């Protein structure tokens, strides 16, 4: 930990605020421009946790995102909540990145920075993979703790202690810093930005980073640097009701039970 206190990096992502996302017919990637968007809710929790830790131990919270310039809005929201500065990695060369290529770009930026704790969301509402956190922890070769419900730091011993979701309960785990954690809903209630927070966010630094700034070969980024690609998009077969039943409740119940039996969701006594 540097003298200036904790260095916390929160990876955030802007996601569409509507479910009805549009897909580019040619590249088969999400069209992100000009859609109402918001800060991924898990990342909002991440920013809140970062700010709380800073408030407790001192230091600095940097939020970082990779995305189109529009994603700056999401950065501004984090700054309005109280994060100290923002970085947006934005470049045409990064378009079409899958999770591996996204994590790689984030890694190339973060490895140049000082950090004690990196916070990612459990998942993002649009891609819903939850890959980035573990990818990034691996690339940076640091321990990871996913699905954190409660967290504290032991500054002396440079350790993170967390309660995390696990199959069948909560695990209490510990890891040395620097480490990466991912958030869950319920970790905290994110604060609403105050008027002063919003006004001052407009004056905080938001650094724009291009693919060239990241360094390395351009072929590691974007669609080219992505091991996976969307080959085809198709309309799932639309569902037409198989049956609408209108009539005597007794018969209706019979029909429901039949369905449950036929679909093997329940099995009959006989």
């Amino acid at each position: 930990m540097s003298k200036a206190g904790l260095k916390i990096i929160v990876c955030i992502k802007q996601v569409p605020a509507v479910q009805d996302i549009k897909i580019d017919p040619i590249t088969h990637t999400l069209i992100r421009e000009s859609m109402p968007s918001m800060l991924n809710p898990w990342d909002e929790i991440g920013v809140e946790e970062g700010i709380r830790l800073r408030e407790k131990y001192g230091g600095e919270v940097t939020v970082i995102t990779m995305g189109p310039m529009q994603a700056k809005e999401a950065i501004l929201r984090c700054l309005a909540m109280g994060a100290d500065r923002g970085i947006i990695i934005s470049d045409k060369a990064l378009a079409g990145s899958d999770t591996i290529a996204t994590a790689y770009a984030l890694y190339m930026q973060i490895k140049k920075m000082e950090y004690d704790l990196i916070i990612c969301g459990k998942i993002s509402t649009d891609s819903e993979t939850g890959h980035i956190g573990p990818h990034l922890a691996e690339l940076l070769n640091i321990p990871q703790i996913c699905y954190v419900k409660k967290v504290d730091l032991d500054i002396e011993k440079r350790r993170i202690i967390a309660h995390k979701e696990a199959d069948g309960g909560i695990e209490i785990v510990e890891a040395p810093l620097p480490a990466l954690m991912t958030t869950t809903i319920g970790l905290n209630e994110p604060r609403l930005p105050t008027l002063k927070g919003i006004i001052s966010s407009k004056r905080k630094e938001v650094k724009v980073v291009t693919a060239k700034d990241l360094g390395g070969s351009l072929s590691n980024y974007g669609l080219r640097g992505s091991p996976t690609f969307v080959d085809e998009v198709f309309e799932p077969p639309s569902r037409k009701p198989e049956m609408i039943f209108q009539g005597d409740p007794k018969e209706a119940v019979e029909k429901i039970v039949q369905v449950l039996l036929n679909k093997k969701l329940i099995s009959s006594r006989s």
Partner: protein
Amino acid sequence: MLERSEEIPNHKGIWVFTEQIDGKLKNVGLELLGAGRKIADKLGEELVAVLLGHDVNGLVKDLGAYGADKVILVEHELLKQFTVDAYTKVLAELSIKHKPSVFFIGGTLNGRELAPRLAARLNTGITSDCVDFDINSDGHLIHVKPFGKLMAKIICKTRPQMATAKPNVFKKLEPNWDRRAKIVREEVKINPEDIRTKILGRVEANKNPYGSIEDADVIVAVGKGLCSKENLKLIQELADLLGASVACTRPTVDRGWLPSSQQVGQSGKTVSPKLYIAIGISGAMYHTVGMKNSDIIIAINKDPKAPIFQIATYGVVGDLFKILPLLIDRLKKEVKEVKLRITAKDTQKRIN
């Protein structure tokens, strides 16, 4: 960083990480053996279950029965409990040594933590939450997964082609207890220092009385048609009978009938259970975006024009207060057990 492997012909074998916890196999691993079997047969390659743990060789016969040709078994004191560090290390070393072409990992909490870390170590592509697989003319695996309102076919240029799937998406094979899988024991060096994230202890989670809805197989959902909080009893009874979690619409949360953790829709959660029973729900777009991917939707609503009937698989027009008591009665009397519970028990029996 590992060099990306694009030498496709060098990679052979369909691998499934068959997770166990406390000596019990997770269903999703067996389900993925079912999905993997088809792909292995199409390609004429081996279906391999990868089993990690301590004292778990008793599970090998199950893996054979559920379709594995071969089981790679790594047993070690330090693999007794899942840790992402140890498991990633072992699986990465195995993968580098044997070069599988496909690697499936079940989307349990552990699996979702492990798979992307492993993919990054192997520097290969990974596709989450697949719902179907196929092989294209170039021999690549086609990963089918939902993409907004649509479905996408995703191809991975590198090897192994990694994928995760949620529980209950694929079907297990009917077990054949005469089938035996070949066992290959592997030794992997693990030191305590390799495990950076240490488990200090466990707390049992507070049980959500309504059940978690994100990963439920059966959901009984209610809307404003329920009329009052008292009537929740009815819903809870039905849910208990079906082993279901209880979900709801926003107005029921606004009225304080149910906590917001149970809300489905635009400002709530997205769910895709096998069965979604929508009771007294009109089917506003804001609600349906959160549940329309359910396998089967049964809607009960007294208004025949309710939009929920446009997306329901089965619709029942009628008064819920008449239908539910009858349904509950019928289920209590005539139905032996809930199928989903049977499967859970039944595998447990076999495994123990």
